[in-house]
Every structure is written in structure tokens, then in C-alpha cells.
């Protein structure tokens, strides 16, 4: 049988722990028993594959999904998905969701007293190209309050969900914006111990992504787990 080449285990400090007291919701939801180390088998090195047939024509442009244009600052969010070995991750599904410019989600449980925008749903989907690149057009989301602690506000962010090549490479994360004064106060952003890892969640303003007379561009590169190098690997 073909030998399974496993994916790398994360280095300490590069990922959050499950239990993190400043994020109150972890208290009753984070596991309390030790995790069992799972050697990677064929079940973990394979994973779902999606083709472009699942995408709609405007899934990449969140400003173009309704009759009118949404209120807010139009932006372009673009980047590259690579693995820990620096190789592009092509043909992988990227799903995003976000609040509107007023900081309100189109969701029944969002009770924030801010207006919904009839021209904004906040859902986007793309598949990376052969170089692992992706690109969305959207509006800059607003900050919004949450009840984690007194006067708690989430910094503006866009949720990202990626599959990568395998069950083991699944990643759900959040992209933030440079210079946001709420970042140092946010328990979710600060749940990852390593400063370098935290800072990589912050997108960069990018003049090359910016389109003249149209929209500012932000670059957000994403790294998925890579396979262990082995001496037998050609």
C-alpha cells in the first residue's frame, strides 16, 4: 500500500489553545480531557474536493449580489494560499462571511442595533487558481459590540474558511485590518500566544491590489499545513 505522509504538527505558540479564559465562551465548550494524538491515516490526508460548478457567478463579488450597491467602503481582498512548504494550494474552496459596513450580520441572532443593508448578504465563495491565488470584492465590515466583557467590541474582520488538500488541513480563521485600535483589546485575536502568528491575521494595505478610481486593496496570504518532509520523498 502507498505510505501515508503525514502533515506537520503545529509549533508551540502558533495556534490558540482550546481553553482561553479571556474569551468567556470557551469555559463551557473547550474540552477538559486530554486530546488523543491521532496519527494521520488515509482518512486524514484525504478530504473533500469541490469544483467550480458549486459557485454562482457573483459569489466572488459581495457588492454585486443584489439590485443595488451596498453602503460602505468598497474594498478588494486578495492573497495567496500556500502550504508550510511554500507551495501554492490550488483549486481549494475559500468561503468568507462578514458583517456589513454598520457592523451588523444578516443573521437572526444578531441583535446589534445597527441597520441591515438590503444590498448586502455578506457571503462570498471562490476557488483558488493554479498559483493558489484568490480575490474577493466586498465592503469594509464595521466593528460591533459583543457581550464577552464590559464594553467589548470586535475589531472589523472577515471570517475565512478553507479546506486545503486534506481533512487535516482544514482552517477556519479571521482576517483583520491594519491599524485597528481594537486589536490589542480583542480576546479572540489575542488567543494565539505568538505575536508573529497573531500579526499574520492582519491584512496589509496593498497598492498593487488597489484599483484606481474604484477600490482599496488589502492583501491576506494564508498558510495551510504542509506535509512533513521525509528523506524518502523524491
Amino acid at each position, binding site marked *: 500500500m502507498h505510505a501515508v505522509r503525514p502533515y506537520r504538527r503545529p509549533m508551540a505558540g502558533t495556534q*490558540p489553545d482550546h481553553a482561553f479564559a479571556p474569551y468567556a465562551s470557551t469555559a463551557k465548550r473547550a474540552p477538559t480531557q486530554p486530546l488523543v494524538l491521532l496519527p494521520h491515516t488515509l482518512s486524514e490526508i484525504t478530504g473533500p*474536493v469541490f469544483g467550480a460548478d458549486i459557485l454562482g457567478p457573483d459569489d466572488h463579488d459581495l457588492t454585486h449580489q443584489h439590485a443595488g450597491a451596498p453602503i460602505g467602503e468598497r474594498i478588494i481582498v486578495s492573497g495567496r494560499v500556500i502550504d508550510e512548504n511554500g507551495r501554492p494550494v490550488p483549486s481549494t474552496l475559500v468561503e468568507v*462571511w462578514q458583517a456589513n459596513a454598520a457592523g451588523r450580520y444578516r443573521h437572526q441572532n444578531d441583535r446589534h442595533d445597527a441597520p441591515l443593508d438590503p444590498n448586502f448578504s455578506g457571503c462570498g465563495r471562490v476557488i483558488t487558481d493554479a498559483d493558489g491565488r484568490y480575490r474577493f470584492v466586498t465592503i469594509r465590515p464595521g466593528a460591533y459590540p459583543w457581550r464577552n466583557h464590559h464594553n467589548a467590541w470586535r475589531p472589523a474582520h472577515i471570517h475565512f474558511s478553507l479546506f486545503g488538500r486534506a481533512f487535516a488541513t482544514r482552517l477556519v480563521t479571521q482576517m483583520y485590518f491594519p491599524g485597528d485600535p481594537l486589536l490589542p483589546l480583542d480576546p479572540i485575536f489575542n488567543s494565539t500566544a505568538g505575536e508573529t502568528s497573531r500579526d499574520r491575521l492582519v491584512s496589509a494595505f496593498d497598492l498593487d491590489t488597489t484599483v484606481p478610481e474604484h477600490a482599496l486593496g488589502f492583501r491576506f496570504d494564508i498558510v495551510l499545513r504542509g506535509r512533513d518532509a521525509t528523506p524518502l520523498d523524491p
Partner: protein
Amino acid sequence: MNLHATAQQTVGPYFSIGLAPLYRADLAPAGVAGDRVTIAGRVLDGDGAPVTDALIELWQADADGHYAHPDDHRGPVADPRFTGFGRVATDADGRFAFTTIKPGAVPGPDGGMQAPHLAVSVFMRGLLKHLVTRIYFDGEPANAGDPILTLVPPERRDTLVARAIRPGELAWDVILQGDRETVFFDC
């Protein structure tokens, strides 16, 4: 190269906005070969309260034990309609359910075989990174020798085994904390 994977962040409470387009509660379109089963259960937090905003993703082989993925080098799955992917959210009672076909045994470490199982990812507000677990099948003789189940302390193994309720119906819960806590893996 000194690269580390991007840090995970919680899926939050509003994931359905982005993830609902791919909700799939039936993993096996009509006509896909195999024994059809429905697996249903609840997600419960450390107080035993239902988790009404959880998302469960499933990944499994077909009835022959083949994955619909190019790294399964034994060739494509027999029926191209079978993708092996499922995604369901919990409801207002913390309940979820999905229908699929029972997978076959799949290759394991050291040339052995693994008992039929589903690979499971669990996402929710309050989880800074998703949980990984597995669903095995009640009464499956291969469970006793499964190379992954045998890594689990014996008294906790039954948290990974869906209980047969009626023919074709199984029950499996996700217990996040406590004495009956589901086994979660460091994947």
C-alpha cells in the same frame, strides 16, 4: 522554509451566512451503493445544555472503503456522485442529523485496515479551533482491532461509537466536557 500555518480563529455565531450554501445533510444521493444509515444526536456543553450554534462536518469513504480524492491511489470511487462530504448545523435543541451510507473499511497504518468510520470536525462559537473526532459503528467486529480506537483509553471508546437505535438509525452525541466527554483527537 520557516512557515507556520495561519492561526485558527473561532467560527463565531454567524457562520451560517458563509457556510450554509454547502450544508449537506445527505451524503449519498439516491442510487449510491451501500447500506443507508441516518445518524442523529445532540451537541451538549459543560452544563449539559444544548449547543444551538454548532456546525458538524463529515468526511468518509464509500461502501468499498475508497475516498473520492486523488491521494487515494487505489483509483476513483465507483460512483462519481459520491463525494464523501457532509455539513450540518445544530438546531434550537442542539440536535443534528444526517443520512449517508456506511463506509467500508479503509487502509490504516502499517498495512492494516481501519474499521468503518467517519472523520468529524466540530465548529462553534467558544471553540478557538475546531475539534476533531470520529464516528464508528455499533456492533462492527473490526472495531476491536481498529488501530485508532485502540489508542483511546478503553473506558472512553464508546463515545466514538454510534449506537444502533433501529435498523438504519444510529445515535451519536457530542459531549464537550465532563465524565462522558467525547474523545477529541489532536489531529
